[in-house]
């Protein structure tokens, strides 16, 4: 077990190194010149060169990358070009807001997706099933910024039940979490339904019914735990999908998380911040998968045996 964990952690480190290399190449190969932007519109060639030298951008690319990696090894993500602050500090300040949003969003998608998926499977081919499947299709297909604007229009502008944007109270979190969660809920409803439909036809479910158990117990105690096994792995992968949504949702709702930070940094070509946010997101994906893998043997005794 400890050996497996060690191997997985080493693998995770390799993945992060790969992500760092690819992002670095992409960002520093950009045609946009950050030095020119920082130096301002009235800058001369000499002052741009000075800024470039100051940022270390005049060094050859491999050396720049090596310096960046050396910094990373010390936990240093570099300094923002524009804000002149350590990227690490900027991200640390924004991370809690994003984590709150992610936990709420995942909560919405899992709770909604599981419930609807189980209901649809139990009422297979009936009206409820069809309704859930149609709705989930809408949820999966609707672009998030449209969903966000619709929700804002209905619940904030028209009904006035919830704040337009901002951060601080639980009420502020409702719409962003819903927007993030609806997309995933659609996916989960479909996946849970098909997993449940499969499991409900299994012999052991028939055995459970033959014992005289109530329908609820058969579904919740016997079918659902088996149906969840493949779903748990999906939640791990899902964290990655989520990070994409976070950028959009934080921008629309003015949610002060790392998505918003990244959004602003992209507009300003503040490369160190983009690098930092990308690495943190990659770390989240890797950790999510690792957690899902570690959870699998807890849920499935057949995996535990090996």
């Amino acid at each position, binding site marked *: 077990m400890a*050996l497996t964990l060690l191997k997985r952690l080493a693998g995770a480190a390799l993945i992060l190194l790969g992500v760092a290399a690819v992002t670095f190449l992409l960002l520093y190969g950009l045609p946009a010149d950050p030095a020119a932007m920082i130096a301002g519109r009235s800058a001369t060639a000499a002052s741009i060169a000075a800024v470039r030298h100051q940022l270390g951008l005049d060094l050859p690319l491999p050396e720049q990358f090596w310096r960046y990696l050396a910094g990373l090894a010390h936990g240093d993500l570099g300094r923002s070009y524009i804000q002149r602050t350590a990227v690490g500090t900027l991200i640390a300040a924004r991370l809690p807001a994003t984590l709150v949003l992610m936990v709420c969003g995942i909560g919405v998608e899992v709770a909604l997706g599981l419930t609807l998926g189980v209901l649809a499977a139990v009422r*297979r*081919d009936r009206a409820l099933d069809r309704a859930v499947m149609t709705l989930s299709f809408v949820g999966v297909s609707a672009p998030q910024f449209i969903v966000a604007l619709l929700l804002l229009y209905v619940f904030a502008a028209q009904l006035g039940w919830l704040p337009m944007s901002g951060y601080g109270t639980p009420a502020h979190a409702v719409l962003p979490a819903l927007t993030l969660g609806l997309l995933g809920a659609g996916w989960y409803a479909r996946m849970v339904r098909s997993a449940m439909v499969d499991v409900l036809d*299994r*012999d*052991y479910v*028939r*055995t*459970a*019914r*033959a*014992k*005289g*158990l*109530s329908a609820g117990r058969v579904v919740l*105690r*016997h079918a659902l*735990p*088996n149906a969840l*096994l493949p779903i748990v792995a999906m939640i791990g992968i899902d964290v990655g999908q989520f990070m994409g949504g976070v950028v959009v949702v934080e921008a629309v709702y003015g949610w002060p998380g790392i998505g918003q930070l990244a959004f602003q940094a992209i507009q300003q070509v503040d490369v160190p911040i983009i690098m930092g946010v990308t690495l943190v997101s990659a770390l989240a994906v890797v950790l999510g998968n690792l957690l899902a893998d570690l959870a699998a043997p807890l*849920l*499935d*005794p*057949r995996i535990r*045996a090996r």
Partner: protein
Amino acid sequence: MTGATPPLLAVQGLTIDARTPAGLKRVLDGIDFTLGREETLCLAGESGSGKSLTALALMRLLPAASLRVAGGSIRLDGCELAGLSERAFRPLRGRDIAMVFQEPMTSLNPVMTVGAQLMESIRAYGRESGDARGRARDALDAVQISDPARRLGQYPHELSGGMRQRVMIAMALARRPKVLIADEPTTALDVTVQAEILRLMRDLRRDFATSILLITHDMGVVAEMADRVAVMRAGRIVEQGPVLDVFERPREATTRELLAAVPRLGALRGTDGPPRLGPATAKPSAPAAEPVPALVVHDLSVTYGAGGWFRRGALAPAVAGVCFDLAPGQTLGLVGESGSGKSTTGKAVLGLVPFTGHVAVDGTAIAGLSARDMKPVRRRAQMIFQDPYASLDPRMTAGDAIAEPLAIHGIGCRAERRDRVAELLRRVHLPPEHASRFPHEFSGGQRQRLCIARALALEPTLIVADESVSALDATVRARVLDLLLELQEELGLAFLFISHDMAVVERMSHRVAVMRSGRIVESGSRREVFETPRDPYTRALLDAVPQRLSPTCTRSTGNTTPFTIT
């Protein structure tokens, strides 16, 4: 059974319709039977005859989407069950009627411990949980499982098939039901385990005073277990009566066919090869002196999972030091229980798993051959698998499936292959026009014929048949075995015939090798092995076969139901 006491369970006019795209279709038509107290009634018949439907209807576990009970009365202890609501019926499950299913491997919840599943049965509907854990242990004790206290904390995958079926029986009997329905409870088990489970069920019927409705296609099991038997065919009961009457004076053709389909152990006593089917003019299988053996195996060993970085050595080999050879036109029966290494041996001789030792197919040593050099060998050695459902691609027509080996080896043009497919289909007694059908349009027996035709496509000299008839019903199995014997006579095929079924091996083989724990414990001519077995394990396998087709002799437990007729 005296006629005076009313029967415990009385089924009258039970009728079930299936919902098909073409409307309702009657699949069970007016079933009548009774089950007395502490009586065992066997429902016998081929698959599709409606035995399992009857059982599921009694339990009310029919899939509502596709099947509908159209009428009939089910009276248990004088109470009519047919009109009860689901709500009123549910408490009866497990308490009054319990059921054991065919597949012990899949009938237990894989993510719950055995103990949790047992305790759930015990308190399924009651407050009377009390010391559920203690009662669960007692229930396991009653089914004679080793180390019951430890089993409670184990998961199903940690138990063997036989143990799982014991757990299923313990669960079914946990609340001492009046009626135990057992649907092919031993079909999926090895022969020695089958004998143990049948003996256990007889003991439990006595100890628990339970009536048993036993469903089986195997008349050998009927002979071992039944007081009375009802023979089903196409959704009706065609014949029923006390087991001795039915066995001695079967009135219906279906019954006679079922009885004849059980290959009797010892039926070929005193002969050397399998019975010849064709006229004596069939071409001699050994034309010249000293022909090249179809298969030579010397010191064959297979170890799975070896070579990993982290688990070098320390693994028991699946097959160790196996030697045999097989002459053209002959059959070697490889017999043993699951896990004995017989399937692994079958795969190794076709080069499908890495092995050490010497294997020569038709004179060509295959050890260390590259994939390219192996290809011509594969033309000469083919395999027929156990599950005719899983071994055909559902999206490929029968014709394409049979022509595929020809296409892979680049034999013939499209039209030639089509002719060859038609010829092969005729060979296995299927109409050539069925080539355009898909696998799901064929029955299990027909599918196995397709697999045989596919194996024959390349005109092999050796066929490895791995449990090729085990998934088939007794009557279908008998016909497929006849086909294999016929093909052997006509084409001079050599069979490596792998089976756990002693009676089938006796019917098919010239020579027999008995495997246990990866080794051959005994081998010789069929006559030697079956008539004068030397190894105690061989004798145990032979004794375990429920083949006493006339229930006249004392049943194999001896002490529980001494049973003789005058």
